[in-house]
């Protein structure tokens, strides 16, 4: 099983994600370059965090047009596993692989801090090792993480159980206070209808070693590794 971590110009969590996959989880991982068309037979693609193209225009928008992303789209349509973290999530939204869009955080400031996330759906390849309702402590670091979609779309999303991770307090209760960036329905992580493409604003790669303050992000990688099996 092989992971591909995509590098866009301006990606800055590409090496972090790669490091965690290779050095912490001892997985086979390679980098994929945005200008290429070849996915090099990877089993799972991770779009890392950062500021692709400086996040000029809109976060993730220009990266969505890169040659590699057209292949990723194909790959996703065929059922391949794709995880977008932070900027990667924004790219997936811009690409239309996930529904909705991101607005600026409700306090209009960049936010870097730990948040609590309630796992609402464990029936996904990204969260299968979590318990339903489990609360994870994982950091966020973004400017545009205020999730939005139209009322019809959000109905759909809820009906299909696509809200995987939601901002909550330490005990799993949703509230305006816990919903630091103002996301609709406290959405922090979202999966597509067919269950193979997920985007999440928090950074699981930053919460994979005890030394750095939390290991709760491991669940995401462990689930992926298990499902690729």
């Amino acid at each position, binding site marked *: 099983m092989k992971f591909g971590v995509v590098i866009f110009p301006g990606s800055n969590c590409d090496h972090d994600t790669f490091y965690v996959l290779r050095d912490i989880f001892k997985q086979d991982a390679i980098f994929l370059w945005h200008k290429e068309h070849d996915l090099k037979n990877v089993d799972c693609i991770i779009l890392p965090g950062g500021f692709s193209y400086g996040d000029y*225009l*809109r976060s993730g928008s220009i990266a969505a*047009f890169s040659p590699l992303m057209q292949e990723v789209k194909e790959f996703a349509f065929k059922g391949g596993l794709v995880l977008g973290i932070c900027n990667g999530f924004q790219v997936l939204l811009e690409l239309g692989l996930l529904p*909705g869009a991101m*607005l*600026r955080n409700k306090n209009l400031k960049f936010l870097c801090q730990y948040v609590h996330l309630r796992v609402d759906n464990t029936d996904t390849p990204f969260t299968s090792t979590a318990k339903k309702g489990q609360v994870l402590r994982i950091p966020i670091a973004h400017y545009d993480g*205020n999730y939005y*979609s*139209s009322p019809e779309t959000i109905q759909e999303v809820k009906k299909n159980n696509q809200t995987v991770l939601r901002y909550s307090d330490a005990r799993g209760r949703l509230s305006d206070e816990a919903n630091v960036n103002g996301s609709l329905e406290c959405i922090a992580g979202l999966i597509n209808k067919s269950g193979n493409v997920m985007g999440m604003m928090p950074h699981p790669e930053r919460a994979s070693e005890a030394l750095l303050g939390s290991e709760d992000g491991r669940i995401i990688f462990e689930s992926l590794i298990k499902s690729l099996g």
Partner: protein
Amino acid sequence: MKVRILVSLKDSVLDPQGQTVRNALHTLGYESIKDVRQGKVFEIELEGVSQEEAAKVIPEISDKVLANPIIEKFSWQILEKG
């Protein structure tokens, strides 16, 4: 040819930036300001295209690139012909 494209959030989408600007203006005593919406403007220089072609290209790039139709709308006008 010079074209101006305005991109702004749809009316149905909350605009916290605009709100904050409004609040800031109120604090400064500009009470007459009832509402502020903030958007983006692009001024684009095109070369070697006719007006007709522009009328095709501009909405295309606005829809595809400059605006995100889920949250934004756009309008445009030609500033300088030629």
